[in-house]
């Protein structure tokens, strides 16, 4: 298979970035929007063509999907270790190409409407292109070093995009926080890479991932503090991934990053950059699975499961609609992580891996849709707060329907996309780790609950009086919504297990009816609860009542039942569990990170006296330094 043309997928956005960045003052906004969309459209077409060629024509040889690599040796770092640059085509990279290009294209189109009239319009599109380039580069990387370069570049461009609203001081703080927290996590990644490079002698994914290769077979050769160094390295690499993917406790930057423009949140914080951590673990999956009997993979599983639950609980308490979505993203990524964590390697055992990638795929569609809908709402009412909304279904019919579709998808209602991937994840968890399965089930219920709380709060609930009547967004914004809504319904039917599996062989996945029924039931309970609490009285209540007739009668007839539920949820779950956890998150986790920063600044203030400006003092320190060093060496190391 000739894969050379795929290099154009990242290069076109790069060219667009350079063009828009250098001539930002000379290009008219309308033209720059067109250039941005045009560039991304060509990348998208190429990506789909590549996916078609790979999955249906050339990719499969003897029932196994092959890996195609095109690379050049960029540098011989030492005699043994060399660094390559190139592109790598295998099922997950092709799948990611499709995801990134689709979402990015939608966001580009949407931004044409959303950012209209903004004075930095051209600059915004330049940053978007830079981000798309970096993300494509990350996806196509052939080795750890290359992925790290693009990993950091993605961080830079997201810094620029989050800080885009430079008039808001909170946006500035948020962009810095995002950059620096993820950079701290990248410390782990970096050291992990160094260890891998030193002990295995290669950065190349193919060499590293070969189950019969040296890197995997000799994992036990060296140990450090009772654990194989390779396991350490994998854990450290996961720390980097956890930073980007907002896993507990490195998630603190994600809610704050919501200060950025909403299309940016849809692109970066829903569909692409935040799933880079999952992609990284999936990329090195054979290593994670085979080294040390998957010890590092267990950590991935538990961190993922905990983050998933933690975020879902917090999401219940949030009133800023973008923050709800941010925590929801964190929770869903936790889902993908633990799916990877409980996965086996070959055949049906590897259902977790497949499910994780499947969920990554479907989640990208419906979460991007949710963000874009939220953007549309914010565009209309000029507020992020739930209390300023309500009854919007009358004014924004398209947004209403598309948001509902996305909410149904994320809640796991069949036949929407989320149902299929979530079901596979729960199946995988059920067979490997019951505890994680129950956590997953609980999260599914919570997800349905908070998502419909959001839906009812925005579109139903009270009839808010607006200063000026909200209106539906322009076509440039609503068309991407409709396309994504269509995808959120349909992509679930893709037989993913035929294409993306850990051992590349493909298997036939069957719906596990009992488990699916339980999951759907839990989701339904969540939806109904939020319906009771948040929808309130209105003219359409009767229609819904007929729809959910049995349940509705049951609950409305038993008045006290309602009260008990209110008591349980509002008083106990909300005040005693969710609120303290949210507080813990804000005060302790966030506080620790900020505390480290503040302490550093404080220390810097304390020692400023040393630099007195008097040469005599300097000479004293100079001579003192010599004396101390000499003493230390004479008495300690001689």
């Amino acid at each position, binding site marked *: 298979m000739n894969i050379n043309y795929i290099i154009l997928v990242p290069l076109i956005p790069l060219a667009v970035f350079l063009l828009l960045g250098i001539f930002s003052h000379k290009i008219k906004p309308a033209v720059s929007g067109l250039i941005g969309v045009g560039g991304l459209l060509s990348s998208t077409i190429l990506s789909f063509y590549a996916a078609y060629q790979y999955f249906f024509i050339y990719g499969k040889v003897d029932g196994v999907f092959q890996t195609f690599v095109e690379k050049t040796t960029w540098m011989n*770092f030492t005699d043994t270790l060399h660094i390559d640059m190139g592109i790598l085509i295998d099922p997950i990279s092709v799948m990611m190409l499709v995801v990134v290009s689709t979402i990015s294209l939608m966001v580009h189109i949407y931004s044409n409407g959303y950012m209209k009239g903004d004075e930095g319009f051209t600059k915004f599109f330049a940053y978007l292109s830079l981000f798309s380039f970096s993300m494509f580069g990350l996806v196509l990387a052939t080795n750890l070093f290359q992925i790290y*370069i693009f990993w950091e570049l993605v961080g830079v461009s997201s810094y620029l995009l989050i800080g885009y609203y430079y008039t808001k001081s909170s946006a500035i703080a948020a962009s810095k926080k995002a950059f620096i927290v993820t*950079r701290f996590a990248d410390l782990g990644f970096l*050291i992990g890479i160094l260890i891998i*490079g030193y002990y295995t002698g290669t950065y190349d994914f193919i060499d590293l991932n070969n189950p019969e290769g040296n890197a995997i077979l000799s994992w036990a050769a060296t140990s450090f503090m009772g654990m194989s160094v390779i396991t350490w390295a994998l854990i450290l690499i996961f720390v980097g991934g956890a930073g980007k993917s907002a896993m507990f406790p490195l998630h603190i930057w994600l809610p704050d990053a919501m200060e950025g423009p909403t299309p940016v949140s849809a692109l970066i914080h829903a569909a692409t950059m935040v799933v880079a951590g999952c992609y990284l673990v999936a990329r090195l999956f054979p290593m994670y699975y085979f080294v040390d009997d998957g010890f590092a993979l267990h950590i991935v599983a538990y961190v993922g499961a905990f983050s998933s639950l933690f975020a879902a609980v917090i999401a219940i308490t949030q009133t800023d609609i973008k923050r709800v979505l941010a925590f929801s993203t964190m929770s869903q990524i936790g889902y993908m992580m633990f799916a990877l964590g409980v996965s086996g390697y070959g055949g049906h055992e590897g259902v977790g891996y497949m499910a994780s990638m499947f969920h990554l795929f479907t989640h990208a569609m419906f979460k991007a849709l949710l963000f874009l809908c939220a953007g549309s709402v914010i565009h209309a009412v000029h507020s992020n707060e739930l209390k300023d909304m309500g009854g919007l279904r009358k004014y924004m019919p398209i947004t209403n329907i598309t948001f509902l579709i996305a909410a149904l998808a994320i809640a796991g209602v069949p036949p929407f996309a989320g149902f299929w991937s979530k079901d596979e994840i729960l199946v995988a968890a059920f067979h490997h780790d019951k505890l994680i399965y129950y956590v997953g089930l609980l999260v599914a219920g919570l997800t349905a609950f908070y998502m419909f709380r959001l839906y009812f709060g925005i579109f139903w609930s009270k009839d808010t009086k607006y200063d000026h009547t909200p209106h539906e967004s322009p076509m440039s914004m609503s068309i991407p919504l409709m396309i994504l809504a269509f995808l959120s319904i349909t992509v679930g039917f893709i037989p993913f297990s035929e294409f993306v599996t850990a051992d590349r062989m493909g298997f036939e996945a069957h719906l596990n009816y009992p488990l699916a029924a339980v999951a759907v039931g839990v989701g339904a309970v969540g939806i109904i609860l939020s319906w009771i609490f948040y929808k309130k009285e209105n003219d359409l209540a009767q229609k819904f009542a007929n729809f959910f007739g049995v349940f509705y009668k049951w609950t409305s007839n038993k008045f006290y039942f309602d009260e008990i539920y209110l008591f349980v949820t509002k008083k106990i779950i909300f005040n005693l569990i969710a609120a303290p956890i949210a507080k813990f998150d804000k005060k302790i986790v966030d506080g620790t990170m900020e505390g480290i920063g503040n302490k550093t600044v404080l220390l810097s203030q304390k020692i400023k006296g040393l*630099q007195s400006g008097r*040469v005599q003092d300097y000479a004293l320190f100079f001579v003192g330094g010599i004396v101390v060093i000499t003493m230390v060496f004479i008495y300690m190391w001689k």
Partner: protein
Amino acid sequence: MDISNFLLMRQEIMLLSIVLLLIIAEIFIPNDKKSSIVHFAIFLFGIHTILGFVELSEGSLFGGSFQTTKLVYFFKNVLNVGVLIVLLQSADWIQEKVVNENKGSEFFILLFSSLLGMYFMISAGDFLMFYIGLELGTLPVAALAAYETSKRISSESGIKFILSAALASGTALFGVSLLYATSGSIFFADITTITASNLTILGFVLFFSGLAFKISIVPFHFWTADVYEGAPISVSSYLSVISKGAAVFILMILLFTVLKPLMHIWENMIYGLTIATMVIGNLFALRQQNMKRFLAFSSIAQAGFILLGIISGTQLGATTAIYFVLVYIFSNLAAFGVVQAISLQTGKENMDDYNGLYRTNPKLSLVMMLALFSLAGIPPVAGFFGKFFLFTSAASEGYYLLVFIAAANATISLYYYLLVVRAMFIRKNDNPIPFFNSKIYMRLGLIVSVIGIFVLGLYSPLYDYIFELNGFLNQ
């Protein structure tokens, strides 16, 4: 001795000729055309830089006092390129401010004399030549630091530098004499079996402090911020890259060859100093408002990273350290260049003055951003590769803790580099620095630095070349 042997000193002879030519030119150029001395000097030095790339043979002179190898040539070429950029960036300043006071040619003469000293220092084959080079490299800089005689702060900077430098070279000389006392020779080639007696250690530490002063290693760094702040920006940038670079080169050569037997000593010493230098430099840089002071502390922190390459004592370590110095030279010069351009136009040197710079001067802001990203180590600019390779070399010798501390420091440094980026791109200013066009020399200086920042990172044969040059360290 064949007269052609003197060709080994071609670089030195040419630079000396340039100095003499400038003295003569000073006499013959009429008073109303004094500013043409700038073009003349830059032209001559440009030719000198280009000719420097013509290959020469290796060898030694004066009974081994002066020696030259491919690596030494390479160092000298690096210094030349650096000085050329400094000259380009300071040409406007000299034409506008200095020539009027009739001190144009002196500036070049002093600067080139100092560079000549650096040449001799890195070519030294014995401690005597080393010391002469060190002094010649240092003294003219003191005069340069005090160059703006109308400014009190400039004189203060000059006097602080000369006092600190005198102390440093005094201790270095004392150290050399102790090393001579214990080893019986001042020739590097003869000192083969140096042993770790108390006297040697004292001698070594004293000697080391002399060079540490130039590299601004904690605790020998105190002069840095005050001098950088007071001296003319050209001189600060010269001090921060050329003077520091030359000192790193000779320190590395000495540690890896003559002082190799003491490795178990200096390894531990550098371990501690690396941490101290990075941490102190970073902590102070966090709070600086004046851009020159800011860059001074940032350059101290960067010195800590350079040590990270030296500590491993291997060919890989030396290569990564040299590579990092190269990257650092270009990045720092780009940053200083922007500060210079803005200071020349507006006289403003504080970080707050930079607020909203992107609105009015987007190109300058981009150059500054790239320079700071490179210093912070963010891809795809060269600084990232420099840092990554340094970490790799230290990690390959098992210094994981040190690498971790260094990487954490790199993250802290990102914070304060972003402060400047934030000021330029994000913060608002009702009264920003107005738009201006720099003159041709300054533009050229900035363009060359920016090209350097990109090319060094992406053009890998350079790294391979340095690796080869360091082959002798493997013996």
